């Protein structure tokens, strides 16, 4: 079967772009119509993505490429193009699906906002950029879209720009991810100069870094490139130590948190590593780094998640933790595991965020201590949120279980100690999710709004239902006895990591975590403050997120500010001072000469005499040297 639809893959990002253009140009006059327009654009993209994905699943596995020359300088040329692979097709479906559902959801969530058309324009622009990122056939084009999604994220985080926190969060999001972006940029520069023919496309990357024709680029450079790419990925995917922006980014509207900061953009880092995985595979050191950073981030963020009280922040740290899992998977060499988790995580985390949005919509607060007892008033939200929470906690047979199990199995096969770390993180995950779930939906209403909370409108609950369904079934795409997804993605049937130990452990920690949560927060068997009274230091450390923000402020922000002030002083006093000194010197000489011009003949005569002496000495004295 020939590839019929893949050549039109460029249309997938084109629809949202058109929506964006129309909204930007006529947004003010369109208002709600514009929102529907954007949703419709995303829907078209979704349909086309599904068609492409189905086409690729049914056999036509040929990768399609198309493009044009973007920039040509002398003998170098930088082409732009798109490439449809199975990976890209999968990502297209994920992105368009979540984007469509979020658009739909936002119709309800953002109803009252007077800048709704701007919101949808940004979301459309984001969808366009994210799809472009997915389809990009070379690293430079990917970088361009990479930055664009960053900007969209920035714009949307700062959407409620009048809140100082939103402003600060937007700024932080942009700048912290930019640190990673610079790593990626330098990696691109390195690749440009080291790759044969200055090629930057992924196919050439694959060929050059293939172990069979290894040695084209030395190991040191390869490691450097891989680490720099990983720096970029870490910035985007909120890996330690660049994770600080992601929780703050929760200042944006909740649908945005679901779309950008849970399902799609933050996963772009993982996607990037997958896309350039050949580079990583060529360097063991890089792989180690990825695995260790991933594992550390997974457990580190999970512990912070235990102590947060903002519903969205808990989810945000959970996202960071789950992204750490994906990186861990990549670090132990399991691309299918990472992509599978990305796939399932997109659904259940979007679900959780949208559910959280629904709760926030109802109670107008984000503090879980002010919620409680919402389960009776918001049945759909509660049920779907519960499914998401269980899925995230890795309770079989929900999607999260399968993907997490795949990662843990891969880790066990590669480096058992990473498996232990992953299992502990999984336990924490289950624990904080149960805490969140029980605190919000069980017990008695604690806040003033909780009692009057109403279920959200259908336009908001429909996406929840769809995502909940997906969070249940998506896991069956790749079970330990059916590696279909992995095979489809990588093209070769990979050695199965399935291990009974992994399954048992992951189920056990998941259930244990949830059980403890139930004991503490529902049954009250263990007092809630048992930990905070025994170990106040630890709890405080977790609440303050290990003081990372303070550390950065102390380490980078303040020195920069001090340096700026010092250099300002240098500039005004030393550099400009030197200039003024020259001016003052000229002025002084002028003043001196004015004093000489006192109108008295004798002074003039004296000057003449001295000048004569100097002149004679100068002329006659030349013979002495």
């Amino acid at each position, binding site marked *: 079967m020939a590839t019929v639809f893949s050549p039109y893959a460029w249309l997938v990002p084109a629809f949202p772009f058109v929506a964006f253009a129309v909204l930007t140009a006529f947004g003010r006059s369109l208002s709600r119509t514009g929102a529907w327009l954007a949703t419709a654009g995303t829907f078209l993209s979704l349909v086309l993505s599904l068609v492409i994905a189905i086409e690729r699943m049914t056999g036509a596995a040929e990768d399609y490429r198309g493009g044009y020359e973007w920039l040509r300088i002398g003998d170098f040329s930088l082409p732009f193009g798109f490439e449809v692979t199975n990976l890209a097709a999968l990502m297209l479906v994920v992105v368009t699906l979540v984007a469509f559902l979020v658009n739909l959801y936002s119709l309800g969530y953002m109803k009252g906002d007077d800048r709704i058309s701007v919101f949808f324009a940004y979301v459309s622009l984001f969808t366009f950029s994210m799809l472009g990122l997915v389809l990009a056939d070379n690293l430079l084009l990917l970088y361009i879209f990479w930055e664009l999604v960053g900007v969209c994220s920035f714009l949307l985080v700062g959407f409620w720009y009048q809140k100082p926190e939103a402003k600060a969060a937007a700024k932080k999001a942009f700048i912290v991810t930019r640190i990673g972006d610079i790593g990626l940029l330098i990696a691109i520069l390195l690749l440009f100069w080291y790759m044969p023919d200055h090629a930057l496309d992924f196919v050439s990357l694959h060929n050059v870094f293939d172990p069979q024709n290894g040695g084209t680029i030395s190991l040191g450079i390869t490691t450097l490139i891989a680490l720099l790419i990983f720096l970029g990925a870490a910035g985007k995917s909120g890996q330690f130590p660049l994770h600080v922006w992601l929780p703050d980014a929760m200042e944006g509207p909740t649908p945005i948190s679901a779309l950008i900061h849970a399902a799609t953009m933050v996963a772009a880092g993982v996607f990037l590593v997958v896309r350039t995985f050949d580079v990583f595979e060529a360097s063991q050191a890089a792989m180690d780094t990825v695995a260790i950073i991933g594992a550390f981030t997974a457990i580190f963020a999970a512990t912070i998640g235990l102590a947060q009280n903002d519903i969205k922040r808990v989810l945000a740290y959970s996202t960071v933790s789950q992204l750490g899992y994906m990186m861990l998977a990549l670090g132990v060499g399991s691309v299918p595991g990472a992509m599978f988790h990305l796939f399932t995580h997109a659904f259940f985390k979007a679900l959780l965020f949208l559910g959280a949005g629904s709760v926030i919509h109802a109670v107008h607060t984000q503090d879980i201590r002010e919620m409680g007892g919402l389960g009776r008033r918001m049945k759909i939200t509660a049920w779907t949120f519960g499914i998401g929470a269980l899925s995230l906690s890795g309770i079989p047979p929900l999607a999260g279980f399968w993907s997490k199990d795949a990662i843990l199995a891969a880790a066990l096969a590669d480096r058992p100690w990473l498996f232990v770390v992953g299992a502990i993180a999984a336990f924490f995950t289950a624990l904080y999710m149960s805490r969140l779930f029980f605190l919000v939906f069980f017990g008695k209403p604690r806040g003033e709004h909780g009692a009057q909370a109403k279920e959200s409108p259908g336009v908001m609950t429909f996406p929840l239902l769809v995502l909940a369904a997906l969070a249940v079934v998506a896991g069956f795409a790749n079970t330990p006895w059916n590696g279909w997804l992995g095979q489809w993605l990588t093209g070769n049937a990979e050695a199965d990591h399935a291990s009974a130990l992994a399954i048992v452990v992951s189920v056990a920690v998941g259930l244990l975590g949830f059980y403890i949560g139930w004991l503490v927060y529902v049954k009250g068997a263990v007092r809630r403050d048992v930990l905070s009274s025994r170990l106040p230091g630890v709890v405080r450390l977790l609440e303050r997120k290990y003081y990372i923000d303070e550390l950065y402020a102390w380490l980078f922000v303040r020195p920069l500010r001090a340096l700026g002030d010092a250099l300002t002083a240098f500039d005004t006093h030393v550099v400009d001072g030197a200039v003024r000194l020259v001016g003052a010197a000229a002025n002084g000489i002028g003043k001196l000469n004015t004093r000489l011009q006192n109108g008295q003949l*004798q*002074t003039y005569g*004296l000057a003449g*005499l*001295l000048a*004569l*002496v100097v002149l*004679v*000495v100068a002329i*006659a004295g030349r013979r002495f040297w």
Partner: protein
Amino acid sequence: MLNFNIDFTGEFFAFFLLSVCAIVGAVLAINFAKVVHMALSLAFTFVSLAGLFILLQAEFVAFVQVLLYVGAVTILMIFGIMMTKHQDEEKARSRPLLETLAAIGCLCLFGILFYAIRAASFPLPAAKLPDNNTLEIGKLLYSAYAIPFELVSVLLTVAFIGAVALAKREEEKP
């Protein structure tokens, strides 16, 4: 270094004496407090110079020197002093910077001149001056230098008329 290698002839003694007089007169002129004293000591210098001219076989020039400088210029100056309100004494308000710099400048200038004189080599004269040089001067003035001579006389006339015109008190305008 200051080895002038001098023959102690009569001419030398005369030169020595006269030059000491000239320098003393000049230095005194600089240092006197009263203006009239200054003028008179300068007149003394002029007379000494006239003596030096005689030593140099320039009797006519020496004569003119006495006539013009001692007789005319100095007297003129003294009249000038008399006609202006002179506080007789140089006032205390001195100008140390100017004076120091002027002294340094003049000393440097002298140093340069002295160095130049010492460095130059003067060949011995090839011939001698005519003995009766007053006559010769007269001849020259009326032959080769006739036109400059006449011009100088015109200059003098103009100068004197100008001096008179300048110094004449202008009539008060109603």
